[in-house]
């Protein structure tokens, strides 16, 4: 697909909007459908699109396999880490009320907690999807 001008320009034009939409889906997940999981998949799809059009090597220069592999583990660490932080603050594991700056409004803590754990989900799902895509696509290239 590398010689097709329309596809190349179209992919380049669409990619930033897809990434922006993924961030919107994540940060607006409290108010509208969506959340970390969907955002992670959409973010991964943006890079999959670029890799399909511009080739795997070009995308891996920006987003190396080592980084996406690290993302996959980092997300789980963020999620579990939020739980540890709430425990250190004297609440239950993943008891987000601990994160409220003003104890009379515990729902603010819930807000922060949800945003943070959803960020963990986003990072893991993004890392996993891109890693799996890289491995499949890279194998095909080497085999041919």
């Amino acid at each position, binding site marked *: 697909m590398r010689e097709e001008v329309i596809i190349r320009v179209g992919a380049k034009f669409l990619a930033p909007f897809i990434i922006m939409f993924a961030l919107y889906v994540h940060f607006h997940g409290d108010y*509208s459908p969506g959340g970390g999981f969907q955002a992670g998949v959409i973010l991964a799809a943006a890079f999959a699109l670029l890799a399909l059009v511009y080739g795997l090597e070009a995308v891996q220069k920006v987003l190396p396999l080592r980084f996406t592999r690290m993302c996959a583990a980092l997300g789980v660490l963020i999620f579990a880490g939020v739980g540890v932080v709430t425990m250190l603050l004297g609440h239950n594991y993943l008891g987000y009320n601990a994160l409220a700056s003003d104890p009379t409004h515990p729902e603010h803590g819930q807000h922060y907690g949800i945003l943070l754990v959803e960020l963990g989900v986003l990072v893991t799902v993004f890392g996993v999807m891109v890693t799996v895509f890289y491995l499949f696509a890279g194998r095909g290239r080497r085999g041919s």
Partner: protein
Amino acid sequence: MSIVVDIVLFTLLGATGFALLKIRNLFAVVMLAGIYSLLSAGLFTVMDAVDVAFTEAAVGAGISTVLFLGALALAGHHENRPGHTPLLPLVVVVVTGGVLVYGTMDMPGFGHPGNPVHHHVADHYLEESYDEIGIPNVVTSVLASYRGYDTMGETTVVFAAAVGVMLLLSGARRARSRASPGEGRDTGGGAGKGDAG
């Protein structure tokens, strides 16, 4: 109006399913599988499950299609005819399907407001979640706060799946570059772990 949309979507879903069974060109099968996911997403939207529809459209129609295409590059574009007659699988499928349909006879009516599933904790979530969590999307409150442990487990499962794929695909590559028979057996162990993930 909703019933018309339901009938159209289910008809298209059934037609896509039969086409998936009949077509031997795997490229067409992958594309039809993506369409199948998109139609399912439409059905979920009709049932007001927008979060599920969103996930189905992004994962089923988006990423899986790309991964299937990656697999096709390895496996070729044509499916061989099976060596056995379809009679035995047909009997198994019909019997299993019959038992499942029979099982649904005991289930409460679909969407009935008096069903137990709507009165266990659902009332509490719908009525109290805005005061307790402070966000309007109940799905997000349940997913990330009330059922935070489950979501953490789910994230770990996604991570474990990736570890499985990495063991399976990266391991095989190393074995091939060294091209020694002992390494080949090591890859077999990696494959077993990958299946578990």
